C-alpha cells in the first residue's frame, strides 16, 4: 500500500523522531511511505481560534495534495481529527465540501491505522519498562480511539502497562488554549502529572505529541523523573 504520512508542523520541527519512527515502522511492514513537502500544517490553530477563513487558506493545499492519496496517516490524533472531522465542517457549503468528505474517509491516526486498517498489533518491539498511557482527547472523543494504542502496547515485550486514575481527563494542552489560559492549562496538567506519577510508571506514553509536549514541559520544570514518549518510538524499539 502507498501511505501518505502527514507530519504536522510541531512534529516536524520539535519531534522529528516520532515521524522517523513511523516511516521506519510502515516501511518495515512493506509499505511505500510518501511525505509531502507541500503541506506543513492542518490549520487547526486558526480554526480553533475562530478564524475559519484563515484556516481554509491553510487547509486548501492539504485537501489538494492529499486528493489522490490511497490512505492518509496522521502523526497526531488532534490533527487527524482536524482532517477527518473538522474539514467537512470547515468546508461545508463551499466548492470543496465533497473533496473534504472524500479525504475524511481515508484519514487515519497512526495507531488506529496499524490496528484497524493493517490489522497488525505485534510489531516485534521490546521495551522493558513500566508505562502509563495518556489518551489525547481529540483521538479519544473525535476519532473514538481507545483500544488501538493499548492493543499495540500489550504486544510490546517486557512492557507493563498501568492505567492511571481519571485516564480520560484532558491534560490541559488544548492548542492555543495552553497559551491563552496558561493558568488553567497548567492546573489541568498538574492533575494529569500527579495521576500519572501515582502509577509508579517510568514512562508516560501517548499517541499525540502535542499532549506530550505540554506534559513533559511540566514534568521537566518540576524535575519529575517520569519521562514522556510517543507510542511510535516504543513500537520502533527492538
Amino acid at each position, binding site marked *: 500500500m502507498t501511505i501518505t504520512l502527514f507530519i504536522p508542523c510541531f512534529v516536524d520541527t520539535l519531534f522529528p523522531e516520532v515521524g522517523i519512527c513511523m516511516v521506519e515502522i510502515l516501511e518495515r511492514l512493506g509499505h511505500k511511505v510518501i511525505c509531502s513537502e507541500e503541506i506543513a500544517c492542518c490549520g487547526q490553530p486558526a480554526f480553533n*481560534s475562530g478564524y475559519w477563513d484563515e484556516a481554509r487558506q491553510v487547509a486548501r493545499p492539504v485537501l489538494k495534495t492529499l486528493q489522490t492519496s490511497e490512505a492518509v496517516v496522521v502523526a497526531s490524533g488532534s490533527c487527524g481529527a482536524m482532517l477527518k472531522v473538522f474539514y467537512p465542517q470547515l468546508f461545508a457549503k463551499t466548492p470543496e465540501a465533497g473533496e473534504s468528505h472524500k479525504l475524511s474517509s481515508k484519514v487515519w491516526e497512526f495507531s488506529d491505522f496499524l490496528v484497524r486498517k493493517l490489522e497488525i498489533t505485534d510489531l516485534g518491539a521490546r521495551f522493558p519498562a513500566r508505562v502509563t498511557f495518556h489518551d489525547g482527547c481529540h483521538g479519544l472523543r473525535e476519532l473514538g480511539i481507545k483500544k488501538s494504542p493499548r492493543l499495540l502496547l500489550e504486544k510490546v515485550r517486557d512492557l507493563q502497562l498501568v492505567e492511571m486514575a481519571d485516564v480520560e481527563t484532558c491534560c490541559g494542552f488544548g492548542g492555543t488554549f495552553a497559551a491563552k489560559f496558561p493558568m488553567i492549562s497548567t492546573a489541568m496538567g498538574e492533575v494529569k502529572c500527579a495521576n500519572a506519577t501515582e502509577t509508579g510508571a517510568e514512562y508516560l506514553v501517548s499517541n499525540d505529541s502535542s499532549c506530550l*509536549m505540554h506534559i513533559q514541559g511540566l514534568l521537566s520544570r518540576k524535575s519529575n523523573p517520569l519521562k514522556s514518549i510517543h507510542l511510535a518510538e516504543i513500537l520502533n524499539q527492538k
Partner: protein
Amino acid sequence: MSSSFQQFLTDATRVAGDIRHRGLMQTALRKYEVARDRKKAAFSDWESARDAAAETKWEAINHLDEHLENLAQKLESRGTKVHWASTAAQAREIILGIIKSKGACSIIKSKAMTAEEIHLNEAMEKAGYEVVESDLGEYIVQLRHEPPYHIVFPAMHLTRDQISELFEKELGSAPTREPEELTMIARRALRSKYITADIGITGANFAIAETGMISITENEGNARLTAALPKTMITLVGLEKILPKMEDLALFLPMLATAGAGQALTCYNTMYGGPRQPGEVDGPEEYHVVLLDNRRTELLADPEQRDALHCIRCGACLNVCPIFRNVGGHTYGTTYSGPIGSVITPHLRGLQEWKHLSASSSLCGACTETCPVKIDLHHHLLHNRRNASASRPSFFERKAYQVFAWVVNRPAIYRIAKQCGRILDPIRRAVQGTVLDPVKPWTKTRDLPPMPEQSFKEWHRNRK
C-alpha cells in the same frame, strides 16, 4: 478585553492555583462519578436512553410554539394564571406585581436557576421583602451572600467546618462537624419561615405540555413545603423546560437524577397542575406560572446551536469538565457555569462580552460525551468562537493567522522560517522567563523542548 473577561482571568488564576480547592472538587466529583456510573448501569442501555431523550427534546424545542400554547391553556383551565415574560426585567416586574397585590411581607423560595438568571432575590430584597431560600445548599450560599457555585450543588465549594462557622455566626448555633446536625440547624431556622411566608416561589424541572403540569424534583422536601404552605405560589420557568407528554417523565426523571446527582430518582417528585381545586384540602389558593424567554427564542432561531435549549440543567457537564473543576463555579461570573454556561451565556448575555467563556476550553469533549440529552456542547464552543471572530476579529490575531497561512503555504519560506527559529532558539532560551521571552505564557510553568538539529522534513529529504 471586556471587564467580565478581566474578572475571569483574575479569578481563574487565583482558583486554578488553589490546591485546597482542587482537592475539594476532586473528592466531591469522584464520589459523584462512582454513584453516577452505578445508576447508569441500572438503565438497560444508557446510550439508547440518551438517544431517546435527545429526540424527545428535539421534538419539544422544534414545536415549542405549539407545546407552550398547550401548556398555558391546560394550566389556565384549572385556574392558574400564566404570565409571559420576554425579558428578565418583565419577569421581575410580574413577580413583584403579584407580591405587591397580595400585600405580602415574607417570601419563601425553593431552588431556581432561572431566578438567579433574572436576579430575582436582589429585586425582591430591594423592594423591601424578606426572601429566604429553602434548599439547604441555597440557604447556605444565601447566608454567605454568594451566588450558587454549581447548578445542582450550590454549596459544593464549602467544607462542613465552613458551614458550621457560618451557622454559628449567622444563626447562633453551636459548632459541629456532623452533616446531620448542620441540617437540623438549618431545618429549625427554616421551618418557621414556611409558616409565616405569604408567597412561595419555585423553579421547575419540566413543564408538561400535554397535561399542563409543572414537575419539580428535589431531595429535601423543601420545594413541597414552599409550594404547599403559603397561600400564593409562583413558579418561574424557562420556556425550554417543556416536555411534550406526561409519559416523557418516565425517562427524564430518572435520567435527571442519574446524570445530576448519581441517584436512581430524587427523593421527592411532585407535579403541580394548578391552585387548590374545589373540594381539595390543601395547596395554594392562587397559582402563577411565569414563562421566561430572556433571549431563549434568539437561541431557538439559531439552527446550529438550537440543541442547547435541550438542556435539563442536570449539571453533568460541569461535573466532568476539567476547566470547571480547576476554576470553580464563581469564576465564570455568570448564572450558568461550566460547558453549558460557556455555550449559552454568549447567547443570553452578549457574544462579545462573554466570548472568553467559549475560548477558555481545551475542547476535550468530555461534556458532550456525558450530556444526557446529547447537546453538541464542545463544538458549539467552536461555533461561538467562529461567530465572535467573524463579527469582531482581533486585528493582531487575524494578522498572525494570515501571516502563518502565508508562510506554511510556501514550502521554501516555511523552511527558512524553521531555520530562523533554530538559530534564534538559543537566544530564546537565554531570555526565558524575562520580559523579552516571546513564549512566556508557556515557559512560566513549562519547559519547551530544544529545537532538534534536523526537522523531520530535512531528514526525509536527506534520505532521498
